[in-house]
């Protein structure tokens, strides 16, 4: 068993992993008596949404990055990476449906998402071809299902959430985002043959990273939305959870009235709500809580050790999630 050392046999980045992943997906879909049009549909969905910008491994290939960082052969992590990609894509399609972003073809999208999730589990059976033991394949599959189930539980809580406090918001973020990401990194380390402490370290790293991504998302969703801001959509958001948990009665009432207005489409109310959130320290809180989860991820990576460039890439990626965290402590 290796424990995070560097393999001189691996040059990084090494290969067109996407081609390997795409071929593996095709192989899996070809093996069953799958309806031809459904097979083609799933492949086109995959090509539309999951094809990387460049053939080299990017951060969506998290299991491969971790495998390489642990000194493993990246080819062994390809089935894991495919399962991870399919899970993410299936979750993305379902998330779009749950968020009301789908205006047509909803039944087909739901059916595509479910098919992708099943295909993701099926593809793990290919790990045997890469020399992974049956016991490890079973362990990987069980943990994938557990992580997916945890994410669904988090999503359920998110959909039904009202009046969250920051602790509850973070529990939901850890379930929705931390658990699947934790699986992806843990699985990459497992197929690399990493020791228990390294497995745990990479899972902690990615779980914390997943929470940090959610924090960053809510920060942008309130103050820098790409389209409709979070305050106008009534989705549970951490800045609001913070503000409602610390503000006095008058401010809470004022904020709630502004949020009600924002949800009715009142642009001025939305603007004033964002300003009020700033005034009660919500941006500062987002930075501090982001810093806590950033530091947790850094500590986890430090504990696993190793000096492979892929590990440094994981660390650099962490720093890029929330650039506002970097340098502000310098004043």
């Amino acid at each position: 068993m290796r424990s995070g050392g560097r393999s001189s046999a691996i040059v990084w980045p090494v290969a067109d992993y996407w081609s390997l992943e795409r071929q593996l997906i095709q192989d899996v879909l070809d093996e069953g008596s799958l309806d031809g049009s459904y097979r083609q549909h799933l492949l086109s969905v995959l090509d539309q949404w999951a094809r990387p910008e460049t053939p080299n491994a990017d951060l969506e290939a998290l299991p491969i990055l971790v495998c390489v960082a642990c000194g493993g052969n990246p080819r062994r992590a390809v089935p894991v990476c495919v399962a991870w990609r399919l899970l993410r894509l299936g979750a993305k399609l379902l998330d779009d449906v749950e968020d009301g972003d789908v205006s047509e073809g909803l039944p087909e999208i739901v059916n595509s998402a479910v098919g992708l999730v099943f295909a993701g589990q099926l593809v793990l059976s290919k790990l045997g071809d890469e020399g992974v033991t049956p016991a490890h394949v079973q362990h990987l599959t069980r943990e994938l299902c557990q992580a997916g189930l945890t994410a669904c539980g988090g999503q359920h809580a998110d959909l039904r959430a009202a009046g969250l406090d920051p602790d509850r918001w973070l529990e939901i973020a850890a379930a929705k985002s931390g658990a699947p990401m934790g699986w992806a990194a843990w699985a990459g380390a497992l197929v690399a043959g990493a020791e228990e402490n390294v497995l745990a370290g990479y899972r902690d790293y990615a779980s914390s990273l997943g929470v940090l991504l959610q924090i960053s998302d809510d920060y942008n969703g309130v103050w820098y939305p790409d389209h409709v801001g979070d305050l106008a959509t009534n989705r549970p958001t951490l800045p609001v959870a913070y503000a409602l948990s610390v503000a006095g009665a008058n401010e809470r009432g004022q904020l709630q009235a502004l949020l009600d207005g924002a949800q009715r489409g009142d642009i001025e109310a939305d603007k004033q709500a964002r300003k009020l959130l700033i005034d009660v320290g919500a941006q500062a809180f987002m930075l501090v809580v982001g810093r806590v989860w950033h530091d947790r991820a850094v500590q986890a990576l430090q504990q696993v050790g190793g000096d492979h460039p892929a590990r440094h890439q994981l660390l650099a990626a962490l720093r890029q999630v929330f650039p506002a965290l970097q340098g502000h402590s310098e004043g």
Partner: protein
Amino acid sequence: MNSLARAVHGMVVGRKSLGDVSGDLTAQERAALADMQPVLARSPEDLARVLAKAPTQSEWWRFADQAKAPTQSEWWRSAHQAKAPTQSEWWSSPRMAQAPTQSEWWSNPKGSVSRTPSRV
């Protein structure tokens, strides 16, 4: 984190010291607050002006090539070089407040089109 929320509120709004607010915090939370005291010493409005935009999840997942990543000092330098907007300018165009946007940093060839999961 609820106690951390109260601590941040105490420092930012109540202008209390770290020692006044850190009683219920974990060691990690206290360390984060200690490191970020200069940030928390700013007024909320001042902090809002200097904050940069965090990348969206879809932008972040596209990040792969470290060669394109600015160093912290590069980022910080570019942030300070940006024209400090007036409050009215900031409110009317918050994206101009500081530094380059993430899409400018990474020159994301797909622009703002998200093909990857967001908020998953």
